[in-house]
């Protein structure tokens, strides 16, 4: 990580990479959120093009399929004026036996400024970050972290509710295999929210109660008086591993419908990182209820958050280089 003593960092976020939320302070998270706010307003203008990152090269290196996260990062980079290249797994040499580190070294030699990496292995993005000179953003690594998702979720909540502290927030569903859940738990607990996790015991990871959350296995008990209901995507292949017996049974007990939602606060918001499995973890009517669901707003916030992160990390990288040359 970059040294936080460096006086040239004015953003309040003094790191070279964004690999995870765990370990960030409330003020560092706040700095990312404040910066993102500026871009939310900007993105609603007709002319969205800036030249802040003119001349910079950003590489989207995705070892795992993604549509929305990839598009969101690409758009964020382009709106800031950077050159953005997308490298998909299928065409890369990783399939030909090249190791992750080989790929990192090769890309590094091309002098990118920011690498945005998604990988299906926990810790893979950190491993890659150790081998390159540029800034690295974790766009999701295995079951570990997905930091920009947590920041965009927090931004969505903060704009709607005016705060994070003191809100009662329930994360529901496959917590065990979810990087979104881990990043969100770290962020929301750090910011002083009252965080609950609601899932069948088979989908709760060992020791989760030590993360500062309250654990529920009953949806209605968990959603009681919540300000925010955050649903997690259920990987259907988990069914084959006996984490739950059937979609029907899962939806019956853990799918979000109006009945279960009725115990939450009347103005409770519904969130989902997408893409949703309608009729599996969330009822279609609930997902599309614009008075309650902010799922599309989350997507909008995503671009703003990624612009903020790109701008801050690029500035940090620039100041580091300048300092090194002195």
């Amino acid at each position, binding site marked *: 990580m970059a040294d936080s003593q460096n006086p040239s960092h004015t953003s309040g976020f003094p790191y070279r990479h964004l690999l995870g939320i*765990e370990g960030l302070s409330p003020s560092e998270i706040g700095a990312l959120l404040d910066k993102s706010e500026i871009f939310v307003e900007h993105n609603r203008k007709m002319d969205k093009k800036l030249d802040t990152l003119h001349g910079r090269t950003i590489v989207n290196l995705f070892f795992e399929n993604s549509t929305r996260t990839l598009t969101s990062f690409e758009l964020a980079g382009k709106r800031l004026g950077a050159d953005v290249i997308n490298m998909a797994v299928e065409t890369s040499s990783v399939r030909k036996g090249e*190791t*992750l*580190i080989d790929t990192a070294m090769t890309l590094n030699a091309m002098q990118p400024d920011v690498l945005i990496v998604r*990988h299906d*292995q*926990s*810790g*893979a993005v*950190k*491993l890659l970050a150790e081998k390159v000179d540029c800034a690295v953003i974790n766009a999701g*690594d*295995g*079951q*570990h*972290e997905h930091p920009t998702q947590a920041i965009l979720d927090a931004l969505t909540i903060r704009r709607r509710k005016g705060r994070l502290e003191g809100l009662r927030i329930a994360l529901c569903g496959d917590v065990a295999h979810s*990087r979104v859940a*881990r990043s969100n738990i770290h962020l929301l607990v750090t910011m002083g929210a009252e965080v609950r996790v609601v899932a069948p015991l088979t989908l709760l*990871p*060992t*020791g*989760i109660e*030590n*993360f500062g959350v309250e654990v529920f296995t009953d949806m209605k008990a968990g959603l009681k008086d919540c300000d925010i209901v955050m649903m997690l995507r259920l990987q259907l292949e988990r069914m084959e591993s006996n984490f739950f017996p059937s979609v029907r049974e899962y939806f019956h007990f853990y799918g979000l419908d109006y009945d279960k939602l009725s115990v939450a606060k009347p103005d409770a918001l519904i969130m989902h990182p997408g893409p949703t499995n309608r009729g599996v973890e969330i009822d279609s009517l609930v997902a599309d209820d614009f008075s309650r669901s902010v799922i599309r707003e989350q997507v909008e916030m995503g671009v703003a958050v990624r612009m903020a992160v790109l701008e801050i990390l690029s500035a940090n990288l620039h100041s580091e280089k300048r300092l090194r040359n002195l």
Partner: protein
Amino acid sequence: MDDAVWTAAKTGEPLGRVAYVNARLLDPASGLDAKGAVLTEGESIADFGADLFKGGVPSGIETIDCQGLCLAPGLVDIRVQIREPGEEHKGTIESAGMSATAGGITTMICLPNTKPIIADMSVVEFVARRARLSGLAKIYPYAAATKNLEGKELAEMGILAEAGAVAFTDGERAIADAQVMRRALIYAKNFGLTIVQHPEEPSLSRGGGMNAGEVATRLGLSGIPAAAEVIMIERDIRLVEMTGGRLHFAHVSTAAAIEAIAKAKARGLAITCDTAPPYFALNENSIGEYRTFAKLSPPLRSEKDRVAVVQGLKDGTIDAVASDHAPHDEDSKRLPFMQAAAGGVGLETLLPIALELFHNGHLSLLQTLAKITDVPARLMGLRAGRLEKGAPADFMLFDPDYAWQVIADDLISKAKNSPFDGRLVQGIARQTVIDGRTVFRRKG
């Protein structure tokens, strides 16, 4: 290490008589701990004791002044993966021999998971011959308990034992099928042989990369529950009870398993076990942020389990300590954690990490040495690990207090994947003697 010298005498030059004087003799088997001397004649120990050469060494005998260093039987390491034949880029019989002798080890038993696996007389003989030619540490093989280590059909245990296999194991794999284990125990009993089990229920460990628990959850890594160990051990205890066979559990790592073994021993069953240094010196926190050198099999456990392993060593439930040496090349370890190979090198750290048990006041110096000399040798039926007149002159001189830092890149082992990289330790082998010949000496 610049100050290490190997003097493997590969030629059959005749050995005379050598007196090792001014040593602190430590022999766990007899309880000897006294200032004294050892006399070797040819390849054997001719005499030793506190009173030997009290009146000076007669002329015609070469004299080596041990300068007060400890002289103990050469270490006997009963769980080593060598990688030759088949994966010589990770380790060879010669590199293992150099690493072992630098660590004071004179005898190793290697696992059968080479390529080809040790399931054939010719491979048993290959390993024995190559070890002999290297002139370094002695190597005895375990042979496969089942064909292709698949856990389905028994290997030719009788013939392999005749060829020199000391016991039978499927190496890093558990013999998972209860019926196969039952038959293996009975058939081995027929020849008076021991089965060595990697105790881990595979249907529970499958897909896991580290100990299940809060640390695994934080890192987003799939966990291996600690119970995977005790479940297999409790089943096997029942099978031993049923068959009357002899079973040895390798690298025991959990509190529950130790408790189960203690109860089985109290019932008089022919069950023994060992552990490896990582399981009493490290815990799952050593993984930090995805340190693959700390990825082991079984995985590093919780602090509570680590403490139980120390206690098991103290009360004797755990009979022995073996290095569990598992060399891997960089390409096998520089990977995302779940994809990285499990295992760590351990030959050069066996002595200093075992000595932590002594320095931390858990065991006496003799008790500590017993776990890595006489006891493991007896478990596997080897004539080694003790000072004995007429026995092969396999011993080592060591300084139990010498402080140094383990630096993975400085290890003599060809593979550098030590889970102890960076650790400050105490105790080092100064000179290693095998069959009367000094094969390793550390200058200074």
